């Protein structure tokens, strides 16, 4: 970790009331979720993090508060720095402010997180499902969503299984 990056992290911790954790030689910053858009703006404008590499989420079900962690990866091409930011999200109000107005790249990443985890992003201009069909029920990457298996059909029992085989979209409540 360069001298410069540790100063950035220190500043962010002070300004946004954050915490730091360290693993495998990388430091990551944990910020309150409601301040994530503000923090992204500071990272973009003041510290030169011009590329938003990734947004994703992790589900810690059956934990309730926080149930999810959002994960942001910021990259600064001119300064050769990368920064991991995490934001805990409670199960009761699964939503986060969108960073789309700062990084256009966030649009699809936030749609993917919404599709897979059901976390809503306030301010995203186009919050529809992206990978799953538009009428799908449930959010597949949540830990309480079953993996789901299909009964193999052979020629001797094809018809028999076909009758009771549920349509993919009816399986979410299994």
């Amino acid at each position, binding site marked *: 970790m360069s001298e410069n990056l540790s100063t950035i992290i220190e500043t962010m911790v002070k300004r946004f009331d954050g915490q730091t954790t360290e*693993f*495998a030689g*990388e430091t990551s910053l944990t910020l309150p979720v409601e301040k994530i858009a503000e923090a992204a703006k500071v990272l973009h404008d003041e510290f030169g993090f*011009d*590329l*938003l*590499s*990734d947004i*994703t989420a*992790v*589900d810690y079900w059956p934990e309730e508060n926080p149930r999810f962690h959002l*994960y942001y*990866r910021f990259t600064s*091409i001119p300064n*050769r720095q*990368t920064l*991991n930011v995490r934001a805990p999200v409670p199960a009761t109000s699964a939503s986060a402010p969108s960073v789309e107005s700062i*990084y*256009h*790249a966030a*649009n*699809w*990443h936030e749609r*993917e997180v919404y599709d*897979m985890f059901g976390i809503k992003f306030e301010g995203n*201009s*186009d919050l*529809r*499902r*992206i*990978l*799953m*069909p*538009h*009428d799908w029920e449930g959010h*597949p*990457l949540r830990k309480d*969503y079953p*993996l789901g298996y299909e009964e193999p059909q052979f020629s001797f029992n094809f018809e028999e299984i076909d009758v009771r085989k549920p*349509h*993919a979209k009816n399986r979410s409540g299994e």
Partner: protein
Amino acid sequence: MSQIEEVTLDGMTHLFSDRALQGETMLLNMGPQHPSTHGVLRLLLELDGETVLNAIPDVGYLHTGIEKNMEAKTYQKAEVMTDRMDYMNPIGNNLAYCLAVEKLVGLDVPVRAQALRVILAELQRISSHLVWLGTSALDLAAMSDFMYCFRERETILNIFELVSGQRMMTTYVRPGGVWRDVPVEFEAAVRNLLKIMPKRIDEYESLLTKNPLFIDRTAGIGKISAEDAVNWGLTGATLRGSGVNYDVRKFAPYSGYELYDFEVPLRTEGDVRARYIVRVAEIRQSIRIIQQAMDKLPMGPVRSNNYKFVPPPRSEIGTSMEALIHHFKLWTEGFNAPRGYVYSAVESPRGELGVYLESDGGPKPFRVHFRTPSFDNLQVLPVMAKGFLVADLVAIIGSVDIVLGDIDR
């Protein structure tokens, strides 16, 4: 019987102009089965005559839930699924995943394995760029390039078959090294490719680079500025065509890329032609890297001897009790990774391929996420296509070099 709901435009009206809703402009579906969309990509076009006003990509047709499936498999067994994401770049995907696993558990890789990884990843980059060059030229009705490119790609796939037994889904790179050492024929096969390749690239270029028809179809088409490109999250040759010097191999070298001398081709125009020139130049740079790696390919083991994470060689299993125990444990239970998470990135032929890997201390990944370059590169399409003709749209999709398996995972 299954019921298929009729798809309507309700809920998508915010994406179009008011003129479309009044019927002044035309809404048209392109795909999902369209030869120039390079897979199952559906575009919803808003057209004013021939001019594209908006192009909204609709993805997800190839979604197979790989991220969810990996959570149910051990670290070694989950790896085979990475081949199937970006099917033009299986070795690169293996490499990205293995680097993440190695970072998570703190595993060292022998130098010979690192060099082999670089050689194969660069061969894969060449083969991927050849498919791109052939198909995107075919979209612009340049037929012959397609045939030539696939001829050379075949040579590369034969090398993969030689080292791994598979032409495409190799799973050759494994956590802690590679599957096994390369056979003796490997060196001759690669040297032969290195000898013919530069001349063949000249051949492709002589058909396209200065061809006036090709220039007319590509120059000034699908422009995007450097600031926009970074802000939209573009990476890879698509970004470097706009003049931004971002290549993960230089930005954060992995697997020993810092040992090799190579350049990152850049163009500043940001149009389809710039991206074409950058990619062709990248093939030449890849040849340079392979040449250097072959010249100083070190001897030695190709797998880590840390048997807590890497299965011991078969020959030891018959004679050593410990080796047998390790073998049994690794293939039934797997290895436990410490609690924590890592993000590690590689430069795939399409851009930054990042792997987010989180462990809860058990033998299976708690969460795997792939930051795939095509996903980010495709979402900028409406910006690039705006104001160009439908025929240009085909050239633009080709120049972004998307792989739908990479987007949908």
